């Protein structure tokens, strides 16, 4: 599983970082980026799914998922 953050959609809600701090980094303005290339380490898929399903801006996405 691989995830990405769409920088044009992210508004700094930081919900992803709060739910899965292992997978995201945020700057002082709240903008989020994925750690590394966004590949989700084994065992963290559930947290990645939570981050996707809780982003109010639909900015956190699974790479290769429908619509990507």
């Amino acid at each position, binding site marked *: 599983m691989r995830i990405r953050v769409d920088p044009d959609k992210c508004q700094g809600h930081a919900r992803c970082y709060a*739910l899965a701090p292992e997978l995201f980094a945020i*700057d002082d303005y709240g903008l989020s980026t994925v750690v590394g290339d966004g590949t989700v380490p084994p065992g963290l898929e559930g947290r990645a*799914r939570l981050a996707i399903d*809780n982003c109010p801006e639909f900015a956190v996405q699974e790479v290769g998922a429908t619509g990507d």
Partner: protein
Amino acid sequence: MGEAAPVTAWASDFDVLAPQYLADPFTIWDELRTSCPIAHTERRGSTWLPTRYEDVTAIAHDVDHFSSLQVAVIPFQGQAPAEPVLPYGLPPISADPPLHTWTRRLLLPWFSHRRVEGYEPMTRALCSGLLDRVAGAGGADAATDYAQQIPVRVIAHILGVSPDLADTFTGWVSDVLEFADDPERRRRGVQGLLQYFTTEMAARRATPGDDLLSELLRTEVDGAPLDDRLVLGQAILVLIAGVDTTWSAIGSSLWHLATHAEDRRRLVEEPGIMDLAVEELLRAYSPVTMARVVRTDVEFGGCPMRAGDKVLMNFPAANRDPAIFERPDTVVLDRAQNRHVAFGSGIHRCAGSNLARMELRVALEEWLRRIPEFHLDSSDVTWAGGQVRGPRRLPVVFG
């Protein structure tokens, strides 16, 4: 202010200050969502009220048509002064790009995730101290003795102003937001805030500290210091936005836990779900409604919106939309899919959302640690609404 005429048609004549709306807006939104998802009223000027998630978030993102120059749900009455004291308003909340963009960047680092972690120990100590005072009694007013006391002191700490004035600040903020329909009270609140921060800015310029107000006074943009009137607006914004909103969220959450024993016990037994529970309580009891003003005539969702019309950004109703949330009227503490917009959507996302979230979590953790069992003392709960919804009196009995 006289008695308003009762509402007979919510779709065409809604009133956000009507007693029925204050007590239970949820039923009204549910009916509107299926019959007339964008309601209208001529009360306090032509105003629209979207109730669907899709519409609310679309309007929030359409900054070309919907301006933030007027964000007050209850419009100010009387004539605007020829030379306004705050020509920039309260940026960034009452600003559009480009002013919005750079003034927001001045504030955001003060409310970053990292910075907010630093405010957590003082918040926890504050909550614990408040509970020391009430825990020995058989009960308390969870709104006035607890919820109301927390955010104002955290914000005072960040701004570098005296926590001893907490009650005064709370009074000014409720004059401006909660009693906005009373021109006399609103004027008093505005004057209090303006005079206080004008004096504080002079003092801080003479003796700078490491607080937000001092930092704004030190800030230069394009080689020039910020206009004093802009700093004044930003300082007032931080206080107004950080007080009523968060204490309403804490109060509503405690109301829910006082009236839902199974959720209260679950949260005590499963502290691991606290982060999700905080988001779910924010979804179900979103305190804040903002406004936008229509910039140019536009048809939106079949509604002929005219330049100058207001639109109420009904984030609380969006968060109860069954098209987005399964069983929206049920609080599911560990709800896994929760794209709630309690903090708004788009470029005006609440700049203090990390802080509010931390305060709500810590306030609930400390309360439940000391008072795991409690229930409503009576049905004598009062709710404020309009711009910010939350309980203003919340008597509870411990045990």
